């Protein structure tokens, strides 16, 4: 399942970053978001804007196109 398909307040355990931009992926890893972590969707901004996510009590926002790359399982 893609992160972009996850509903608000649902959690996805990340399995794969797909073909996400390598710098973007690196920054996510450095921020503690990597394979095996669960992220919760907090909000989608309107008009295809960024998506607010939560990972272990930490909030961050990434663009919609990047949520299309992240795949995993609902938990």
């Amino acid at each position, binding site marked *: 399942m893609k992160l972009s398909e996850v509903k608000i307040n649902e959690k996805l355990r990340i399995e794969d970053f797909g073909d996400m931009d390598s710098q973007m992926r690196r920054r996510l890893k450095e921020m503690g978001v990597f394979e095996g972590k669960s992220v919760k969707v907090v909000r989608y901004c309107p008009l295809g804007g960024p998506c607010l996510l939560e990972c*272990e009590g930490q909030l961050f926002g990434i663009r919609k196109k990047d949520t299309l790359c992240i795949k995993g399982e609902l938990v």
Partner: protein
Amino acid sequence: MDIALFGNPNTGKTSLFNHITGSYEYVGNWSGVTVEKKVGRIKQTNRSLIDLPGVYSLNPLSKDERVASLALLENEAEQILNIVNADQLERSLYLTTELMETGRPLVVVLNMVDLAKRHRVTINLERLSNRLGVKVFTTVARKGDGCQDLIDFLKNEPTNHPSSFSLNYGEVIESAIREMESVMAQKGDTPRRWMLVQYLNDNGMICDLLDEKFPELRGIRQKADEVLRETTGKRIDDVIYETKMAYIRDVIADTCVLTKEKEVFKFTAFIDRIVTHRILGIPIFLLLLFLVFQLTFDWLGTPMSDLLDQWLSGPVTDGIQKALDAMGAVPLIKAVILNGIIAGVGGVLVFVPQIFILFFFISLLEDSGYMARVAVVMDRLMEFIGLNGKAFIPLVIGFGCNVPAVMAARTIEQPKERLLTILITPFMSCSARLSVYALFVAAFFERHQALIVLSLYVLGIVVAILIAKLFSFFLKNEKSYFIMDLPPYNVPQLKSLLRSTWDKGKGFVRKAGTFIFGGTVFIWVLSYFGPSGMDVPIDKSFMAIVSSVFAPLFAPLGFASWQAVSALITGFLAKEVVVSTMNVLYFVPKGVTLSGLLPHYFSPLAAYSFLVFVLLYTPCLSTVAAIKKETGSSKIALFSIAYSFIAAYIIAYVVYILGRWIF
């Protein structure tokens, strides 16, 4: 021995720095990059603490971040003070492992222990210190708790023993490292393991550095990467990352107890539900913005500016005049000081209260954590014009004053997006330009004042968007990405707010004393002297002569009088000077106002074209200076002067032609 402060963004680095150092000992630029370098003296010692931009790792993505890695490479950072977010240990310790690999003396400061406590995280300090092999302190930098212990330690124990720390990355990587080491040793270089690990981890900066000297390394890396892919299916940087993470998780499991699953703080979640609301998010932001502008320009700033103005033009001018009379100064000196310097520099100084108030609220919005949310909410719109959400903040600030706006572009990571933001920021109609609009709409467009002014603001925005779109075709060869860390909200501390307000605003005051001072005297001299001597009638001055030369250039735009051109030239100093110049040059007789007089010189259409030109042309001197400082390039500063002049000319011309065609 100098100590450098390393840490993730938003971990309380600035707060800690401010608590353990006194005033700045030195603020300047890092050589080669235009990132500010701040050095402070640690209280009660004579040791220096170097503040570094917040980084997540030693592998930099932005210009700011490069500085942190440079400090290690160039041995500026002989010792390391590593501030760690106790509430986000896992990700904070990633940087720590990279720093420990450098083998430099290192002290860990666990900050935000109050938040960790609220998340029910208990950390066994002694064990953490043993596991990491370094001294560990805890602080709440926001309040200053624990800072004294740290100062005492830094005071009394000047020599830390370098920690010996090394992770085993598995046979493939380790043998690649050995091979690289021997290549480097053969060429007479002492290899540093941490650099090789960074090299294998694809740290662009270190790769560039080593590849140049040791071209053989590339092949070794490639080979190791292939072997790893074949045997484990993993990339080399993933293996390095996982090794570090496994170590970190082991340390955390050994030293921390988490009694319940972490959640976002209720208060933060609550505020976010409102300010990042799907529909209300943007209106709420606009409302807050409106409030800030009201406070800055109407409720607080303008009364204070007026008071300052009265004081400068009243008691100060009178006092200096008396003093000059008493000293028997010659008329020339008197005229320079009173009509040139005081009028000119004073005219800029009166904006100091507004600038500081604006900066105060910007600091407030930043410190509270709200600005990060605004960047997210606005990202979609900004992406459309080739920028990202972080660029929105400087543009908004630009409506107040372009100078702080240009400075605020610092937070944008991608150098090209930052440059683009800096280049279009001056099209945001700043408050100084409003005084020119006010004069002209009163004279020409009495019935539609608000509409005309609004049309100018909108025109500025439209032009900025078009130019951004245009430039992004030339500039955009870097990948755009956007990722925004949203720290928990907190109530900012007054003291740190005042400090960051002052940090931001002091440059403005300094500039008034140097740059604007010089420019004012120069322009005044031009209008005081003429070919026939000094104190000539103003239309016989060099100013009039020079302006008349350029005046025909503006005939296609509808205003070719030398006075208008003079006003534009002096307006380069500060846009509000356009008004005062016109007041002087049009010989306003008693009983008549300038706005009553202007219709003799301009047609309404020419007046509008003039306003369009004032809106768009060359940024004021202070803004150009800020552009030069922030980009570190005179060429870009000159470019911004030239291209906005050309844009202004073309657009004012089109407006004039269209207008003539319609009316």
